[in-house]
């Protein structure tokens, strides 16, 4: 059941501030799902807490709006248990890189087939504008009482270091470009990360649309840009190139795909080497009840299965 065009949006009133970059992300995501014809019942958006987290309610696919920082582990449980589902995480920069930083790194290490979309606005939107972990050192956005004295973490470099095999950046106000990135991220097999530059019109008066317009360059507009790792020997040089572009910020901010590596086994594949019949047979579809509400392990096979724990007392005395 693929919905009609546009029905990938729920009819809820979207309660972001007018002009918020999140609207662009919402449009890009719904369009991407629509163009990929993803079945809503087989798609799950898992979000964290923040302005960004509300997106799970605005998209007409399954939505799991979780805890601050924990969307990734929720998504992992969903994806591992039912690998048929397309699982997309949406979180804020505070959500994913501060309180949820450990999960962000762990997902990369696992290369689980999940997409992580980071609404990167440099602030904690929903708690009224405190500095987020991507806010540059020495910057004072309007709701900060004092200048930010913490250094930012570079999301692109962190994703690369963690092992994400698809690393990209998009811009919330370039919806078509962002949509294309989303489509590639979703179809990528493995952990995909999309850093979305998202102007927060209410609290971030530094990273504005104007700021970005002056600086954004598309990687694909650079002559000969090719992020795809051809083989294992190619990995190192592609990684270096991605890091080099990822380091740029002050005068040039790159969007597009920084890094793409299809040569790393996805976590599901690693698991299937250990678990016979996985992912076909998986936690969500494997049988646990026999007839009459009995467990499938019963009197007939219990002792055989757990024979290491059964001691048959010697005969005679």
């Amino acid at each position, binding site marked *: 059941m693929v919905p009609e065009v546009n029905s990938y949006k729920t009819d809820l009133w979207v309660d972001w501030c007018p002009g918020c970059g999140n609207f662009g992300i919402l449009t890009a995501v719904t369009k991407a799902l629509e163009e990929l014809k993803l079945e809503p019942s087989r798609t799950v958006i898992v979000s964290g807490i923040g302005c960004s987290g509300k997106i799970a309610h605005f998209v007409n696919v399954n939505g799991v709006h979780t805890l601050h920082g924990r969307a990734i582990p*929720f998504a992992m449980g969903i994806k591992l248990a039912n690998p048929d589902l397309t699982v997309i995480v949406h979180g804020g920069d505070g959500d994913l890189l501060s309180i949820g930083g450990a999960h962000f790194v762990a997902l990369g290490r696992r290369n689980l087939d999940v997409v992580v979309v980071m609404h990167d606005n440099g602030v904690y939107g929903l708690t009224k504008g405190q500095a987020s972990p991507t806010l540059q050192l020495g910057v004072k956005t309007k709701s900060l009482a004092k200048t930010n004295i913490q250094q930012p973490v570079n999301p692109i470099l962190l994703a690369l270091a963690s092992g994400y095999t698809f690393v990209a950046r998009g811009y919330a106000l370039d919806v078509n470009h962002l949509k294309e990135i989303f489509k590639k991220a979703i179809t990528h097999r493995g952990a995909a990360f999309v850093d979305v530059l998202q102007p927060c019109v209410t609290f971030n008066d530094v990273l504005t649309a104007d700021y970005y317009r002056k600086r954004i360059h598309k990687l694909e507009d650079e002559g000969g840009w090719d992020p795809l790792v051809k083989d294992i020997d190619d990995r190192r040089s592609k990684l270096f190139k991605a890091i080099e572009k990822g380091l740029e910020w002050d005068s040039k901010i790159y969007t597009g795909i920084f890094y793409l590596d299809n040569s790393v086994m996805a976590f599901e594949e690693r698991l299937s080497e250990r678990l016979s019949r996985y992912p076909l047979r998986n936690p969500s579809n494997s049988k646990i009840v026999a007839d009459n509400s009995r*467990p499938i392990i019963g009197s007939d096979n219990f002792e055989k299965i757990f024979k290491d724990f059964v001691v048959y007392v010697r005969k005679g005395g």
Partner: protein
Amino acid sequence: MELNEVSLILGGAQGSGLEASMLILSRALAYGGYGVIADREYYSNITGRHSYIHMNVSATNIPRSLRYPVNLLAAMDSESIFTHFNDVANGGVIIYDRGVDGKRISDVPSMEDALKLRVLKHLQDLNIESDVASILTYLEKERRITRVGVDFTRWLRMLASKFELQPRVLSRYVSGIIVVTTALILGLDLEYVKYGFEAQFGNRKEIVKENLYLMDLIKEDLNQYGGLLQIKKPTINSDKVMLATGNDFVAIGKIVAGVRYQSYYPITPAADESFLLEKFEVIEYDGDVIGPIIVMQTEDEIAAITSAMGASLTGSRSSTATSGPGFDLMVEGLSWAGMNEVPIVITYYQRGGPSTGQPTRGSQSDLFNAAFSAHGEFARVVLSSGDHLEAFYDTVNAFNIAERYQVPVIHLLDKFLANSLATVPVPDLSKVTIDRGFTSNGGKDYKRFDLNHKISPRAFLGTLNTVMWYSGDEHDEYGHIVEDPENRISMYSKRIEKLQIIESEVPEEIKLRLYGEGSPDYLIVGWGSVKGVALDALDELRKAGYRGMYLDMKMLYPFPKKEFLKVISGVDPSRVIAVEHSYNVSISDLISMSTNVKIVKKVAKFTGRPMVLNEFVEAIIKLLTSKEEYKVLRYGA
């Protein structure tokens, strides 16, 4: 005189193979038809600190508790003698390595100063030098304790030359020496020990052979000691038993219950459960496979509980296992489970707190943490288990309750149960059922939180033609955020009021169990692993003329008020004693806040060591015969 029952301690340094000794000896005893319970006491340390196994072996029944003094101490090192010599009964036996005869307490760096000073003081009072030989001579003279000094090194050397073994591997065979020597002294048929080695080492036939060679050597050398503490021929009539720890029984229970996703972050004493589950990830059986069970070692306990919830939303039975520090990290997740009515099982093995506390020691001090942690009000269930077999059934019950009522269930256990090894009857699988609760096939207008039902029909993520939402924010029937006050009242009440349904529907035997004689003149109330010692105490006290009962509170939350009040109604409140491994004996507070019944007499123990029979019985008698209200137990090294 033959003994019905033998208590023993096997002592040695952590990492020296004590656990192997325990397993081999227990297997041998189980095979011979004896009942065994073995508690493992150890430091939070990998190598070198003193650890010991405290065992109780019975020819007549399956033992339920530990006793002091012990009949036999098998000491791998001098520290074991310094630490435990005073725990050996008159007429008992100490097996030790003759090589340590000259060791003094001051030569043992691993021993903590406080204990050294206590022992030195004691030796001073007895007017004995602080070396092994002096202590053993004293024990022999004054307390008729036989010292069986053996020459570990000579046997090991002979073994090495016979099988051309490298010197560095020889220490591995000490555990076998301890087993064989102990078995000889108990007068066991060495066929049992042979079985023990074979069961322990399985296909590693060489190791079995080497140990059997040692067995012959030892038998020849120690012939004179054979049957020194002769244990009776067993009269327990069963042709098979299970020999497993509490961790094992929970894991087996989860497998039977159909767990399909288990997450964990390593922590004592919970991690062993996940290791075992991992071994059973896929069970190949009759050309089919059971499973898979995905066992995920997550980056922390927050990911453990949240990923388990994610898996649960897809319809797989999901759980996690932890102890206090990990549970604390899970608490925000617990609140989400309450808000979103997610069936999930948290197996919570208590250990000594606060903070890292006593990481490898036992405790029951987290009752309130399990029952009341997490913000907001919501339904949860806390179950406890009194022994290994109960732990198995309760694990299945936990999943059934979680799914039937769509709530998080905390299965509250402790280190004593988790790490102790016991012979247990094979569970009766005909008693086990699986209840998946009220499920739904979804559909176009599916509402996950449908208010037409007290427990909404649950469709799983991925159900055909069905879309649903979950949110930690207050939500409407679809799962979308709504802050409307009327909706808040309906949703909030619905979630909490499941507690009443649970209280009325859960069968009494899951809620509480009563043991002992009717119209008692005293009643002990406890929960979890104190059951064994409490039941044995009833028997001991009966011999002393007291007629008592033990009330085992199994479902701690929601507290089964009605059933509790029924039990307590006929009993004089001043003859009720609450027991718990904690300082506060919180069960009495839980009872008082739930039922207004005030229990003032309490037995507490918070050393991290389990309550043992002798001190327990003494405390109960004291509380019954005096004005004292609070006894703190302290026995055990």
